[in-house]
């Protein structure tokens, strides 16, 4: 009936195809809104940055020649900043894995030791820990160079915080996953390695990414033990020439850019993991 009269009575045919134009309009309206949002976002950022730069420049606080001469020296610290951050996060991850296993252990001694570690490290300032490793340990006969000292202090410190992240991640793996592995006769160690850990890693990746971003910034603290990273270099030339604003601005900008780059990388990683198993 409806089909037969289709040629003339198009107004009365089923409305499935006729819905398309409105759906199309909604889609394109949403797309336009999204694009507009992005343009506004970029514009606001551009304006804010311009305001700061122009303001400082007008106030005579930015001198291109001084920057031209000294920026390369400051930027030369990027490599050490990244090296310290990566080495520290690797050590922290290792400490956290052991710490988390300890915090989940039913063995009282193991549990006590790992809880002690977490409590002690989280209860004292990172700066104090850095001083202890560099200035106090030598009195006990343990002498480390500045960079290894910084890595040890940062790694132990972040390891304690990440212990709790890993513990929560391991506990977040549903118990049914372990039961299914038990039911096929898998022994506990194998279950941890093959079933629990891979799922826990996926769960903790966002949180560990945040720790790494924080680590990039906290790595500046090792400048106090003469590690010649970004901040140490900025302070060095800035105070020498009484150009602190410019010097620290350069350092701050670099930390900012590093964290943005890593955030983008982290977002991509999360999206890829989400695609593979959800």
């Amino acid at each position, binding site marked *: 009936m409806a089909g037969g009269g289709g040629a003339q009575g198009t107004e009365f045919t089923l409305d499935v195809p006729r819905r398309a134009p409105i759906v199309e309009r909604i889609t394109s309206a949403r797309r336009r809104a999204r694009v507009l949002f992005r343009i506004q976002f970029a514009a606001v950022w551009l304006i804010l940055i311009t305001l700061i730069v122009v303001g400082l420049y007008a106030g005579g606080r930015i001198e291109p020649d001084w920057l031209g001469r000294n920026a390369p020296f400051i930027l030369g610290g990027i490599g050490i900043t990244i090296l310290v951050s990566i080495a520290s996060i690797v050590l922290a991850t290792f400490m956290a894995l052991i710490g988390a296993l300890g915090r989940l252990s039913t063995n009282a001694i193991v549990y006590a030791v790992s809880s002690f570690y977490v409590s002690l490290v989280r209860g004292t300032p990172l700066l104090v820990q850095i001083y202890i490793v560099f200035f106090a340990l030598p009195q006990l006969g343990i002498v480390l160079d500045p960079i290894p000292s910084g890595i040890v202090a940062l790694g132990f410190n972040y390891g304690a915080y990440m212990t709790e992240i890993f513990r929560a991640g391991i506990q977040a793996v549903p118990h049914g996953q372990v039961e299914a592995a038990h039911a*096929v006769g898998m022994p506990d160690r194998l279950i941890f390695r093959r079933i629990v850990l891979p799922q826990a890693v996926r769960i903790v990746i966002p949180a560990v990414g945040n720790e790494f971003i924080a680590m990039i910034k906290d790595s500046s603290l090792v400048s106090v033990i003469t590690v010649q990273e970004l901040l140490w270099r900025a302070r060095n030339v800035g105070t020498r020439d009484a150009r602190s604003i410019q010097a620290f601005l350069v350092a701050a900008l670099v930390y900012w850019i590093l964290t943005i780059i890593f955030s983008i990388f982290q977002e991509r990683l999360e999206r890829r993991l989400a695609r593979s*198993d959800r």
Partner: protein
Amino acid sequence: MTAAHPLPDPAQQPPTGRLAPLGSGYPEGSVLPARLGELIVRAEGLHKWFGDNHVLRGVDLEVRQREAVMCIGRSGSGKTTLLRCINFLEEPTAGTVEIDGLRVAADPLHERSRHHQEQIRQMRMRAGMVFQDFNLWPHMTAIGNCIEAPIRVRGLSTRDAVEVAERYLGKVGLLDKRDEYPSRLSGGQKQRVAIARALCMEPKLLLFDEPTSALDPELIGEVLNVMEELAHEGATMIVVTHEMHFAREAADRVVFLEEGRIIEQGPPEQVLNDPQDERTRQFLRRFLAHAG
């Protein structure tokens, strides 16, 4: 090869007309189904307390080779606990379980002892389990789920494990989904992969814990079909289920539990059509009224 569910071999069939021995779960003097083989599971005096809650109150259950036993009863009657005590996913508070000659006694005071855990592990390798909510490992593909334990627990080579896994994935009708992650499968497909995963260990016994309770109604049939096929091919299984129609079709024996005890058991026609105990009658009446 087909150790999981050997097809009834006519030469090994016990003579028909054998009388049911005491404790077999069949009414005294009745005739055992001819296809049943030797006794393979014997649970004796199982008790389970959860705190002050006495969930299992002395359950004895024997299962013969190629027998499909279906446990029914209202929720809280202890059927799931019974199943989980049989492979020690719950440590019974008292009692013993013997599967295919390996006997393990409940030892709740030394639950974590290495010897006890190893015995339990050996026993679990003889009893595959299928869970209500599948519990597939989400970071592995369908075939990854199926070959994990055969390779790492049974020590099969990857090639052999894949061959076995493909056979059982084919059996549950999902060979074309072998490389899909569980997240891409429907509930019914997930449960069928879970069944294949259990079969890949080639166990002597299959335990099903309400395998269709988490499924959308239209997906229940595909899982029940696979289970029914397994039962007809002679897999030994204990199934906790609410699917009375399925129990009637596929069970050799129906066991009715109430308040942690087996109240009544026997062939499905008898227990489901002509229950002797008032409590069974009441349960079935209520159940059928609800099921419409």
